């Protein structure tokens, strides 16, 4: 076994965190706003749609397994690749501003109340850029370590909130129209398209057991869906629909309730790390991908690579400090990535179905 390769478990944990990012980027309160208690079903519907999207993307991951998704674009669209890269760069950058701004505000609001936003943004970005500069195996190993920590925190949450669960708050069920159910599950699904693109950054050939590649990814979708369901279910059954709707992060209100024998109390700051982990790996892979795309757009020598990376950091810091990206732009960004995935998938279909029509096989 090659130690530099990514194990299947590491792949599962990384993609698990990527799909869990929904809890941070969109949040369950938006689902509940749309669909009240029936949002429980929206998550289940969303998981089904995500699995369908995975089957659509499977062919992209399997195509030229030694290449990542950016190289695959180069192979499939040699003439228009720059247009693709610029589009990816713009929307990745916008998404990053949205997530980093949101996480900084979250830390500012719940953990470091009196600290200036910029003081939170700079160390956060420096750390993320440092990890993002590392190769993929380092990021996936970090995700494995964080996975154990995440489940420990989740166990604490579960044990702590168990006495407060009240199933009466889940009632009434099956009251929404099909339209509302679809709209609400759309929120779940459309927030999670970017992870499919980012998973494409990991070439299949880098994985230790390629046979289990699909199973690893499917598991991560299912596990993260279960975690989202768990969060939604517990929040609704404790706070009820009305309170869940008014808080941006209703989970934090629940964490504040956790107390063990009146001795271990006020754990919400530690438990808020759950939400930070939910978004951290999306930020890391976005930065990794952004740096990669930048190199594709402007070919730079290895010596100057650090300069461009630092410039990217400065640009992102200034943008995050000055700009606020609304949630709908984040969803639009995800929509663009959906289109990109669809175009790539269609092109692969054409290349594989009509090899003579395409010149791409000569490039491979």
């Amino acid at each position, binding site marked *: 076994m090659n130690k530099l390769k990514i194990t299947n478990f590491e792949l599962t944990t990384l993609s698990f965190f990527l799909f869990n990012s929904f809890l941070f980027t969109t949040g369950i309160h938006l689902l509940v706003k749309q669909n009240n208690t029936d949002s429980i079903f929206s998550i289940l519907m969303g998981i089904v749609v995500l699995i369908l999207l995975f089957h659509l993307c499977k062919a992209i991951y399997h195509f030229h397994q030694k290449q990542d998704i950016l190289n695959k674009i180069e192979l499939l669209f040699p003439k228009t690749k720059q247009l693709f890269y610029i589009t990816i760069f713009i929307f990745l950058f916008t998404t990053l501003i949205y997530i980093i701004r949101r996480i900084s505000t979250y830390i500012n*609001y719940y953990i470091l109340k009196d600290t200036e936003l910029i003081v939170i943004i700079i160390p956060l970005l420096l750390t993320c850029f*440092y990890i993002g500069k590392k190769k993929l195996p380092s990021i996936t190993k970090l995700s494995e370590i964080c996975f154990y920590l995440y489940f420990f925190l989740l166990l604490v949450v579960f044990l702590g909130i168990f006495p407060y669960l009240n199933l009466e708050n889940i009632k009434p069920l099956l009251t929404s129209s099909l339209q509302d159910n679809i709209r609400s599950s759309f929120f779940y699904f459309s927030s999670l398209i970017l992870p499919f693109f980012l998973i494409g950054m990991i070439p299949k050939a880098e994985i230790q057991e390629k046979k289990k590649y699909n199973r690893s990814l499917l598991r991560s979708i299912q596990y993260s869906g279960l975690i989202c369901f768990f969060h939604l279910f517990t929040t609704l059954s404790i*706070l009820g629909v*009305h309170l869940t709707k*008014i808080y941006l992060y209703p989970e934090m209100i629940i964490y504040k309730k956790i107390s063990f024998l009146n001795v271990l109390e006020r754990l919400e700051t530690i438990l808020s790390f759950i939400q930070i982990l939910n978004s951290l790996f999306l930020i890391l892979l976005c930065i990794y991908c952004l740096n990669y795309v930048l190199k594709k757009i402007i070919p730079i020598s290895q010596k100057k690579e650090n300069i461009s990376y630092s410039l990217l950091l400065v640009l992102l810091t200034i943008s995050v400090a000055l700009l606020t990206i609304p949630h709908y732009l984040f969803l639009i960004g995800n929509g663009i990535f959906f289109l990109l995935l669809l175009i790539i998938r269609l092109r692969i279909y054409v290349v594989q179905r009509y090899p003579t029509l395409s010149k791409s096989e000569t490039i491979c």
Partner: protein
Amino acid sequence: MKKKLLLLLFILTLTTSCHSYTELSDLGITSMLGLDYQDNQFIIYANIISNQQEQTPKKQYKTYQATGKTIEEAFKNIYIQNSKKVYLSHMDLLVITNNLIDNQLKALIDNFLTNNEYRNNFQMITVKEDIEKLFTSEISAEEINKLITINEKESATTKSIDFETFLKSILIDHNAILPTIKVEDTVKIEGITLIKDQKIYDTLSTEEAILFNFLTNKVEKTTFQDITVYENETIITTKKNQVNIEITSTIDQQEEKYQTELKKALLKLLTHYQQEQYDLLKLEYKIYQNDYRYYQKNNNILSKLKFNIDIHTTIKENYLEKEITYE
């Protein structure tokens, strides 16, 4: 390597937590907060825990009073008299006046929702008048909270309500209840205040509060018409417009009288508020939860409700002869 070390050092300087830290002794930990609204001004009373050195055997708290056009402004004005940062995370009790409920309840809720320092588990009470007297007396939040919980447990004459429960009630149908106190020589329980459409609506006397607690399954021990109730369980189920209330009590004597009188009193209370169009038990919401189709098809469900009350009793066993004759 050097670059990495430099980067690490730079990050470390930013993550020392030295930025905007507050010493514990600089925090004015507030245990009880009072809010009043008079002449278009908010009046804030804050009971702040004194430092150990400043403590005298009699008083542990220092009370500050400030006014302002908004709650935020009133808080800022506290700093004119106080050198400590008002810290609300450990707040145990919020006292509000009827005036504030009638005029600025929404502003109060908004402030508590937007300020993240509060926790949702502090208790809430109303005081009809004399909020100033309450804060100048030496009664602490802990004592008032104990007064409420002891009365709730031992006589069921009141009901403790925390901020989250209050908020949930307001969000469901703009109605809520709050325990009420009265300040005379000492602090006394004064039944329960009813809030409708974010305004004071009515007050339940202590006798009515007992009945209300019967209906909300909050009676642990009480006395009803000289009959002692040792245990009680109330289950409310709804089927369309039928509200079935099943009460099982352990009492000391007079089973028949208890059953008939309690049923009569409960029906009187329920029908009175039904006629007044005040949903005392949030039954409409209960029907919305249990029978959504019926709820959708019908308007003004409250007036259509029919109550069926069943009371079962058991006499508490003791270790005495059944008939004791004193000669």
